[in-house]
């Protein structure tokens, strides 16, 4: 079945350092979404990427969708303590089909 893998599983950075998490799918995806889950909270939608090679930015966050639509990345520039949490990618093979989550990357930031 469809699998979505994320690396690294954990990442600790000093405040101000950059952070990147990578997502790889075993199958071509129709679209990919990114979610953030704060400790004790529930996943909250960040962004959706649909087009091959698409790049989107949200302030310090940059999201990329690979040319083959099988991988994606999230890059945070100059991390802040408010960035702490677990970042999940989630993908669909086709629009309307099951939304499958990766295992997530947990980011911790020390000031």
């Amino acid at each position, binding site marked *: 079945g469809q699998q979505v893998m994320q690396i690294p599983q954990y990442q600790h950075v000093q405040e101000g350092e950059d952070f990147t998490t990578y997502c790889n799918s075993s199958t071509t995806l129709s679209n990919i979404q990114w979610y953030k889950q704060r400790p004790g909270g529930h*996943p909250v*939608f960040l962004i959706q990427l649909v087009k091959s090679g698409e790049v989107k930015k949200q302030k310090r966050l940059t999201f990329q969708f690979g040319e083959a639509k099988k991988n994606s990345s999230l890059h945070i520039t100059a991390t802040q303590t408010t960035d702490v949490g677990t970042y999940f990618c989630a993908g669909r093979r086709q629009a309307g089909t099951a939304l499958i989550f990766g295992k997530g990357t947990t980011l911790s930031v020390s000031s």
Partner: protein
Amino acid sequence: EAGVAQSPRYKIIEKRQSVAFWCNPISGHATLYWYQQILGQGPKLLIQFQNNGVVDDSQLPKDRFSAERLKGVDSTLKIQPAKLEDSAVYLCASSYRGLRNTEAFFGQGTRLTVV
């Protein structure tokens, strides 16, 4: 706009007992998901509904788990009988089935502890 409502928030049961969770999605959202999130892991899809029809239940342990969405609105997830490994947070999510915007909105979840 009201969010996804789930109840109860917490539940502790003994193994082999039964338990049911309830979810009311955002009004107008045709797609409803149930996910199981074990501590430290990503959400695992149990079942996805489109209105009152099942889109995907391939990872639902059907010998003990069941879910329904009879009127295409709210949904219940049942476990009977529960096992220790069912201890997890059960997340319900909904999304509006549109061609462009399919983000999933999650409820607060039900934390189940099986002892």
